[in-house]
């Protein structure tokens, strides 16, 4: 039986934003780009959690951060909150693809400092 697609959630402005959806393979797909305002950063973790809760518990969360810039404290905290929240929900794995070496450095520090080892897999993008 085909799962219904969980509605997309998104927030953006001229500098950056994110979108969240769940596909038929029970993977929550997140796209994050640009530089986040305080408002967008504040909405991020809840939006991902809402989509995770809207259907069956997803096994994994896939984050396309190919176009995400390094973030200030609010954006970093939003990413940490998302990783912690989906781990607490029972999601098994998060993968993050980022092209910018600076963004990957930011993510590497966040992942190392806040999330259980191996839960978040950080990959280099192709851009």
């Amino acid at each position, binding site marked *: 039986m085909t799962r219904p697609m969980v509605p997309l959630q998104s927030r953006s402005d001229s500098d950056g934003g994110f979108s969240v959806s769940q596909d038929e393979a029970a993977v929550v797909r997140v796209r994050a780009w640009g*530089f986040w305002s305080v408002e967008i950063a504040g909405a991020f973790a809840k939006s991902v959690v809402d989509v995770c809760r809207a259907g069956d518990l997803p096994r994994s969360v896939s984050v396309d951060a190919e176009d995400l*810039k390094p973030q200030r404290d609010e954006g970093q905290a939003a990413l940490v909150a998302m990783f912690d929240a989906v781990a607490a929900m029972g999601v098994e794995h998060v993968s993050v693809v980022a092209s*910018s*070496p*600076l963004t*990957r*450095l*930011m993510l*590497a*520090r966040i992942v190392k400092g806040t999330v259980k080892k191996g839960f978040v897999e950080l990959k280099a993008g192709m851009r």
Partner: protein
Amino acid sequence: MSEKEAVLAAARRFYDALEDLMSGRGRQNMDEAWHHMASVTSSHPIGDWAYGWDEVAATWDVFAGIGRPDLSGSKITDLRGCVCGDLAYTTCIFHTAPIVGEFKLNCTNVLQKVDGVWKVVHHHPDKDARIGEALQRIAETD
């Protein structure tokens, strides 16, 4: 002190602040080296352009986040400057810290005098992906 001497001193403060930041002594001096304006811009040996102080500061946050004492040892040579009114530019050769690989990068900085104080408003070094690879290894293995 002449305007050119003041510009060169401001550029040296920027690189001293970069050394502080990479050595794990925090971002405060880097913050003070820049005018915090929406028009400032920066790139680094790795990554994309940052536009406006918020984005520029976020990139320095990344380096501050991996800063530690054994990343110290960067220096600049051949610092030169040119002043045109309240704007000036400098060029220099930046030598990365030994642990990163001792790369040499040509760098250009633009400085602006605002309220009588010269500070950086634009920073542009050569790109070098090897620096990103070295920093990523350091960030993941410390």
